């Protein structure tokens, strides 16, 4: 069990900066994030995009901002549980929250701050009605063990790097590989595109462009997909596996079932106090929350986190006096390490 003063769900910019503000109050923080690296959407979606509205930085790349935040919180030595998503929350007999991840890691803290941004990144699922019936029975969105495709008939959908890379890899080991894509050009690395084209020419990959999979059929397990082409023709391909690789999209996920008041996929908080939710001891900060006049901006997340940690301090150390000091007066954060 990981014990901490403040448990932060989401290691995006808001969660990271909250560690700094908590650190100034000598609080220990631990962060959970479903992604394998900190930074949230800044690292996952747009690391190379410039941001222009961070006070004091006329321009800064998203990835660079995350690097700077990591540097800024280093003295406070926060803990990280990465690549795991928070699934359940309970309260123990001492009034502390126990948050457990999908991999079973348990965390204990007097306060929980949800800084989940857009939510948990999950694979995009094609809108095919009976698709659910075949999930993990031939339909897989994430390739965990490529060996299961050895000597099997595999259909891959998508036009990005992951579709191209897996097509190249599986062409070697699978009995048959088909790649289906909406248009004729691909957005992946040029080198991968060339390889796939060469494999198609050599007859090792069945490349079908200007088309998409619209139907899946099978009994217990998947046994075929039906491809609809833009010209109106259809064809059914016998297969053991279909890998729809359409990237990741964020959803609120299990946090949506924690009994919090939710409005339009966001957690309702009290912005006149400390961004508390309807459950005492649980706060929501950054893009994940909503209140009248809410702006989804990184700088607003920084502010919300700063206000929130003052209350979290009182919950972690009810007998200690909270004294607010400017970092300029403290002469840096060295004394707090």
């Amino acid at each position, binding site marked *: 069990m990981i014990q901490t003063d403040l448990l932060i769900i989401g290691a995006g910019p808001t969660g990271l900066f909250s560690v700094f503000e908590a650190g100034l109050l000598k609080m220990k923080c631990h962060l959970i994030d479903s992604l394998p690296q900190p930074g949230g959407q800044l690292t996952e*979606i747009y690391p190379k995009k410039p941001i222009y509205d961070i006070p004091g930085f006329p321009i800064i790349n998203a990835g660079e901002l995350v690097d700077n935040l990591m540097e800024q919180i280093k003295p406070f030595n926060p803990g990280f549980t990465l690549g795991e998503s928070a699934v359940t929350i309970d309260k123990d007999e001492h009034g502390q929250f126990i948050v457990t991840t999908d991999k079973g890691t348990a965390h204990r803290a007097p306060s929980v701050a949800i800084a989940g941004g857009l939510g948990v990144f999950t694979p995009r699922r094609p*809108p095919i009605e009976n698709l659910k019936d075949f999930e993990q029975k031939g339909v897989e969105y994430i390739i965990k063990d490529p060996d299961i495709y050895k000597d099997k008939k595999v259909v891959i959908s*998508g*036009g*990005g790097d992951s579709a191209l890379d897996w097509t190249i890899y599986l062409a070697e080991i699978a009995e048959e590989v088909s790649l289906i894509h909406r248009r004729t050009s691909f*957005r992946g690395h040029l080198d991968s595109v060339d390889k796939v084209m060469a494999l198609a020419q050599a007859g090792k990959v069945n490349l079908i462009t200007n088309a*998409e999979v619209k139907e899946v059929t099978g009994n217990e397990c998947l046994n075929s997909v039906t491809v609809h082409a*833009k010209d109106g023709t259809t064809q059914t391909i016998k297969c053991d596996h279909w890998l729809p690789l359409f990237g990741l999209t964020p959803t609120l996920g299990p946090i949506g079932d924690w009994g919090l008041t939710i409005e339009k996929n966001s957690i309702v908080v009290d912005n006149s106090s400390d961004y508390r939710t309807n459950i005492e001891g649980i706060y929501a900060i950054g893009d994940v929350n909503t209140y009248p006049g809410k702006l989804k901006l990184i700088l607003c997340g920084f502010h919300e986190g700063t206000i929130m940690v003052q209350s979290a301090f009182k919950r972690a150390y009810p007998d200690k006096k909270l004294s607010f000091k400017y970092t300029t007066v403290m002469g840096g954060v060295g004394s707090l390490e």
Partner: protein
Amino acid sequence: MSADINITVIDREGQQHQLIAPTDMNMNLMEVCKSYELPVKGTCGGMAMCASCHCYIDSNHLLNEPSEDEEDMLDQAFFVENNSRLGCQIFMSSHLEGLKVTLAPESD
């Protein structure tokens, strides 16, 4: 001074909405829809990275060609048709007077 333009948006229930959009504020169609509280999420904030503003262009207006980023995102979207575009990549200007679009179905 730039004039406002009139655009028609058909929501996912088939209901028509007449919107008035300014052309001098560098607004895109996603932002205009959001300002009228139409059900367009605009999750990524207009960076062509989420497809939550996916729509179909119903009128014959000549639009800017989709960028590679927009095409890439449409590759990951569903219900994509020949007239599919991302609303966040369509910027309001006077030549779009009378533009008519339908919001694409949401996936998930």
